[in-house]
């Protein structure tokens, strides 16, 4: 608990959070987060807008149901009975307009690449990409020397998390999703310079 007057209203909280105060009341933005103020008859959680946004974004990642090849089977398994990605707030959506994550599962051909690009462009910001499996990551352990497979999906869309494997187990995909959530929690979209 911090000494000093308890902030009472919404606008004041934001002003404390955004503007550094003088003297002993100075608290960096990082320290202000997760400080609980007890009020008579309630409590007030003081945090930054950014933290709240990141928390919300990371806790309800909605991926696009988009299967390319074999890895899509393990992705389906990850959504299904034993592994159950739903418990991390990951619920597949059938349209890119409602999705904020695209899991590129499997090898992508040169014919398919413009379609993947367009799907990614149709997704609203902020959007994230998981490259699942070796084929999506780099053309794969098996398709490295042929004429039709794209050598890595990152030549078309920016990738946030790479999940290795041929195909990765569902646990590996879950690990990838958790890593992405970590990444989102650390994001500084509002305060970074030149944003």
């Amino acid at each position: 608990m911090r000494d000093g007057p308890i902030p009472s209203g919404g606008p004041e909280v934001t002003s404390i959070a955004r503007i550094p105060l003088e003297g002993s009341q100075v608290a960096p933005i990082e320290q202000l987060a997760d400080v609980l103020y007890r009020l008579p008859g309630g409590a007030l959680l003081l945090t930054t807008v950014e933290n709240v946004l990141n928390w919300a974004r990371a806790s309800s990642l909605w991926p696009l149901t988009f299967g390319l090849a074999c890895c899509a089977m393990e992705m389906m398994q990850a959504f299904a009975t034993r592994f159950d990605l739903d418990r991390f707030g990951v619920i597949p959506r059938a349209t890119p307009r409602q999705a904020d994550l695209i899991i590129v599962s499997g090898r992508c051909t040169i014919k398919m690449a413009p379609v993947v690009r367009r799907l990614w462009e149709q997704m609203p910001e902020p959007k994230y990409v998981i490259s699942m499996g070796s084929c999506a990551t780099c053309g794969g352990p098996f398709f490295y020397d042929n004429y039709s497979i794209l050598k890595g999906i990152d030549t078309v869309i920016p990738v946030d998390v790479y999940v290795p494997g041929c195909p990765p187990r569902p646990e590996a995909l879950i690990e990838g999703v958790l890593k992405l959530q970590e990444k989102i929690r650390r994001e500084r979209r509002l305060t970074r310079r030149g944003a």
Partner: protein
Amino acid sequence: MAKALRTEELILNMGPQHPSTHGVLRLVVTLDGENIVEVMPDIGYLHSSVEKMMEHRNYTQCIALADRGMDYLAALLNEMAVLRAVETLGGIPVPERARYIRTIFMELQRIASHLLWLGTYGIDLGATTAFLWCMRERELIMDLFESVTGGRLHHVYFRIGGVNEDLPPGWTDRCREFCHYFLNRLGEYHRLLTGNPIWQARTQGIGVLTREQAIAFGASGPVARASGLQWDVRKSHPYEVYDRVDFQVPVYTEGDCFARYLVRMDEMRESARIILQCLDQMPEGEIRTPRVSLTPRLPPGEVYTRVESPRGDLGIHLVSRGAETPWRVKIRAPSFSNLFALTQMMKGWKVADVIAILGSIDIVLADVDR
């Protein structure tokens, strides 16, 4: 009403990104109102050039490639298709025990593939419970696979002249236990879906393919057998130990989506029966012919062999010129023929039936495009 209502045909593009196309298939559907006039599949979105790549791989590497590049839901059957060609051309013997192990694994793979089909078909038609139940049982098969081959989806378990490793202790008991468990579960699926009025309304009488059309399009597997065609490679050209086990080939004559569903349900039952018989008959002994090179040079010549994959008649035409690698490989993919039978099945049905019909033929796009 002096003026006549002006109507025109509408072209609707389904895919290549569509949750129900089971991969990256684009369907160009010409519609007159709600009725389908014509359907043209646009394929090639997953062309992996497997046939070309096999020309630069030795035969053992071809097995690993066949796992991934072809029908990825039936990896072990692809391995078998390649191995049958290699072993036939090279005259390489396979020990008895390995033959039984191969048969058991192929039938487990068939059940896994059909389970995935049933689950996704359920989702297509709005029955999410079916998906969750099927994936639950499929996970048990994956455990059985994993404890022997180390892989869940791609195994690279079969070798030229046998299999890679023997079964671990206790595996046969677990497998037998699974089969009995699964036969019970199959009854549960029937109770959930077969008598369900919604399921019947969406599938019965929809997407009829007559016997003549099935033959003309070269359809095979459950699609042909649902149209009254008695054709199963396991019976007509027995390989491994299929001539020593007792099983039936389910055939229905209606040719609609419901018949295709019933054929696959019955096939899962028969597969479980085959596995149980193989477990009883399996002898002890070698699992791999000794002194077979990992990189054999096959004698010059060509061979065409076929296996019954969960989707139909999977053929491999292999031409060897005496090198360590094949000179040419041609894959006859069952999904390819079945996909083009779709153009006939869909004519005249409503746009809402597109998904029901497409799901019922169980295509895998990696199999279509190779």
